[in-house]
């Protein structure tokens, strides 16, 4: 585990070191100008948030029905990253919106569902932090509900808002822009894997210490 982590960390650092160069070289978008560069953080961040949330939900389901501790460690480590990437998405989003729509926030389906997904995972972490014993199982139930909830949030907000249609900026991705975007995405994936490996390892050690304490108290 540890050796792979070092290799991954090295690769992630390399990708991040090169990313600014690639982003700088990418062409300027005509209407957005320099602000368009946010896109190279925003979209990969949002993608990561979605994929990791999906992963956390699946892991929670596995934990709930099989009681395998590793699934819970994976779910917790993933949930923390959802909050991390969610924060990144939700900070860069309004910066983009200010330039594209003239407002910081818009009750658009995608924005609202991202915000709620982020909030649900914060609630999950709060539960894990302050819920006391047994909160791992409660958290798993919560994450499963969160997963089922996302389509409902999307449909309801979409319908609620499309009654008042608004034009949105759809980024036309030309190849010179797509390159740096996927490069940044690769960087995030590598970073995420490093964090994930470390966090899971930490959780495993915590579980082992807890088991030792229990054994010592009984003995």
């Amino acid at each position, binding site marked *: 585990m540890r050796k792979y982590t070092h290799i991954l960390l090295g690769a992630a650092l390399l990708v991040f070191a090169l990313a600014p160069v690639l982003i700088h070289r990418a062409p300027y978008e005509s209407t957005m100008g320099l602000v368009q560069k946010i896109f190279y953080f925003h979209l990969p961040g949002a993608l990561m948030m979605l994929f990791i949330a999906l992963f956390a939900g699946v892991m929670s389901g596995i934990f709930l029905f099989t009681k395998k501790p590793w699934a819970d460690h994976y779910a917790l480590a993933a949930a923390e990253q959802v909050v991390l990437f969610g924060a990144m998405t939700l900070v860069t989003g309004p910066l983009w919106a200010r330039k594209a729509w003239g407002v910081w926030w818009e009750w658009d389906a995608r924005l609202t569902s991202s915000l709620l997904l982020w909030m649900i995972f914060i609630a999950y972490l709060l539960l894990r932090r302050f*819920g006391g014993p047994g909160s791992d199982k409660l958290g798993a139930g919560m994450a499963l509900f*969160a997963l089922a909830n996302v389509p409902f949030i999307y449909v*309801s907000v979409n319908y609620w808002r499309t009654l008042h249609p608004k034009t949105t900026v759809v980024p036309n991705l030309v190849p010179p822009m797509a390159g740096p975007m996927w490069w940044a995405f690769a960087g995030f994936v590598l970073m995420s894997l490093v964090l994930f490996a470390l966090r899971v390892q930490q959780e495993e050690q915590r579980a082992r210490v807890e088991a030792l304490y229990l054994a010592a108290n009984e003995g």
Partner: protein
Amino acid sequence: MTAFFRVAWLIFRKDLAVEARSWELVSTTVFFSVACLLVFSFALINEGQAVGDVAAGILWVAIAFSGTLALGRTFERERQTDTLRALMLAPADRPALYVGKLLGILFLMLLTEVILVPLVALFFQAPIVDWPLHLAALLLAGTLGYAAVGTLFAAMLVRARSRDVMLPILLYPITVPVIIAGVRGTAALFQETPDAALAQFWLALLVFFDVVFVTLALWTFEPVMTE
């Protein structure tokens, strides 16, 4: 299958019998929901006129808030006397226990709404008698969705620390679709020229939400409640 419904029915009757002796939940929940209604009215009524179509919003916020209170108290009662453990030990289907508790909460919340809805009509001149069936269906479907998620979460949290704080924290983000659909559907009925078709769309969404979340709750109740 008949045993399943018999267990659910017995638990529902037990909750009613307990409640009929004290009236604790009914009286506190109804009072709290009316207090909510008033607080929002003071915040949103200006110069004797409500701002925009707030009636539907206020109604659903009062339902959601008082529902949280009722959920918390119902399970606090089971916790104090350790009767939830006794229920769990009973040789009965776990999902049947869930359905029984859900029916109790649903009954309580609907009872509150029977008082709340006429008050909204009174305070905000909301036309509740124009489309009574649509309105009743929206309230029933919305309350069922809210109570289905709420009952599961409140039951899960019985053993957790800081459960009073955790219930709204977990419940509100998950039930956002219920609130949006309930508020928009009710607002469509309350507007100057009621839009029944729009209300029906939201009703369909609520029914779909109910089906998915009741199924999911029945499915997860057993593993979540097993110690």
